[in-house]
């Protein structure tokens, strides 16, 4: 009876693993679809921007608005991917690819935002680049909460979050450019670098 119970329990666990694997695939497909949608939005945005540039149309408010939306979508993808992080047991490689796509998309959006800020000389919105590492790093978590609160209070703020430990050549270049050595580090409006935790009030003082 013990052996039978053990074998059935083992079979149930295998079945559980199989169901879990199916959900892993669904999660990855869901994450991939979200990224694909945002990628299309980015491409659409780039095309629109090129069109404006070639036909000499200057519609900075529209570009700002679209950029804001793009930032919100990226934030949503980031939160979803972070939540999946604790669930991803199988297909780790595919999950890493998903993260890679996400961070590259963020970097692209960050670069685009800089380009628009330069061409429109826009001072209406603020951009924050946030380097974090959530594993055993309470300061990074706290910085994330402070930035979430900032975004809730100031709608014109976009935060691009980057996992400092994630291995990706383009992200390494970004880290090297800003000389990021510790986490958390935030870059305010492309220039001001703050290392270590900084409160919402202090960020507001720096960007306003």
């Amino acid at each position: 009876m013990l052996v039978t119970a053990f074998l059935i329990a083992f079979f149930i666990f295998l079945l559980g693993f199989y169901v879990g694997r199916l959900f892993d695939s669904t999660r990855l497909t869901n994450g991939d679809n979200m990224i694909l949608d945002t990628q299309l939005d980015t491409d659409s945005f780039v095309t629109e921007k090129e069109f404006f540039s070639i036909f000499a149309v200057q519609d900075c408010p529209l570009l700002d608005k679209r950029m804001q939306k793009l930032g919100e979508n990226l934030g949503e993808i980031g939160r979803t991917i972070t939540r999946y992080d604790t669930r991803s047991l199988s297909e780790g490689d595919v999950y890493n690819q998903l993260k890679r796509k996400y961070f590259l998309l963020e970097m692209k959006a960050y670069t685009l935002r800089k380009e628009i800020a330069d061409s429109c000389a826009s001072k209406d919105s603020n951009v924050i680049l946030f380097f974090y590492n959530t594993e055993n790093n309470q300061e990074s978590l706290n910085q994330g909460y402070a930035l979430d609160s900032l975004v809730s209070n100031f709608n014109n703020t976009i935060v691009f979050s980057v996992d400092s430990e994630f291995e990706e050549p383009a992200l390494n270049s970004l880290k090297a450019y800003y000389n990021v050595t510790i986490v958390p580090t935030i870059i305010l409006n492309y220039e001001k670098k703050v290392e270590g935790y900084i409160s919402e009030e202090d960020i507001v003082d720096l960007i306003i």
Partner: protein
Amino acid sequence: MVELLTPFTFYIWSMAFLSVFVSLFWIIVNSVLKMHGKKHAVLKNYPLVTVAIPAWNEEKSIVSTLECILMLDYPKDKLEIIVVDDKSSDNTVPVARKFIAKHKNIKLLRHAKNKGKAGAMNTAIKHAHGEYFWVYDADSYASKDLLKNLIERFYEEGNENVGAVVAITLIKNQGNWVEKMQRLEYVMTAFMRKLTGSADTLHTTNALSLFRTEAIKKISGFDEGNLTEDFEIAMRMRFNGYRLIMCEKGNFYTRVPDKIKNMWFQRVRWFRGFIYNTLKYKKMAFNKQFGLLGLFQIPLEIFVLLSLFVSIALFGYHIIGELINILYMVYIMGYNFFDYFTLPSFNQFLLELNWRLLFPSIVVLCSAVYLYIEAHRYVGEKWRFYIPSLLYLLVYPLFRSMQWIHAASLEIFRAKKKW
């Protein structure tokens, strides 16, 4: 890639597997029992039974207890009733004497000083002439057919080395929710004893268990000073090669504490007794000589007890970590803290569940419900879910965990034993 790598998640997986394995094991035992019904022995001549009533300040219940015994469906000339007064300070002795004057087969023995229940039973054993020895708590009463059913089990084929037959215990007082909650516990315990009895891993007796007198004498009677002498004698019987079985026909009813405080201290005493006696007979664990009891039941109980402390430590650490995190969030985010928690869509909710763990958990839950229904069927009661059931399933395990911690700490610090 995180889940299998931390000790916490590994522990959760192990516990989930163990829960599925154990619940399935008992379901299989139950199914096998259903397939192979037992033939009950029918006796022409019933043997002499000594009924021992340990009495301490029982002036209110002693007469009804004796009347209840005399009303049993059992030949009166085959009953030897011994009341052992354990130095009562009330009128137990005069009340009992008055009743005994009218009945020749009842004896009253008196202790010069209080010796406890085990001491009273040892006194009764010394004067017992019966082939079987029935411990009858003064606050309990048996259904009329119980004694016959208990005796018949000794005479079933293959039960020659049975040292004791354990009766189904049910609750007499089911008034308030504390009592109702215990009712569920007693129903489940009775059913689990039936299963353990069938798997030959039963190692406890209760207030109205029937012993083979020769077996008790052979192992030198009850352990005086032990917090749970009924558990200790059961362990000692098993240690000496006797089997214990359940009697599935007939019940006995007992009174349970009606207040949380009393219930708390009763359980703490039981759990202390369990810890002490399990350590006393630790040689039985992982010992092939004791079959499934040594290789499965005792190691499982030790593991469950140890895992309780590990669980509290791990979950405590986890919960404290989460609380610290929430405090940080509240401190940093202020009112925006509430924006952080948004309800996910149904699809998102499904995707965020840990299905690998949820799947076996659902199996365990279904098994638990199945066993719950079977347990009620076993004791002949209608199963139902009501508030005390929910309290029993959701709150009582936490309550019980704290009682275990209390009992373990008392045992570690060798606190004075209290009954």
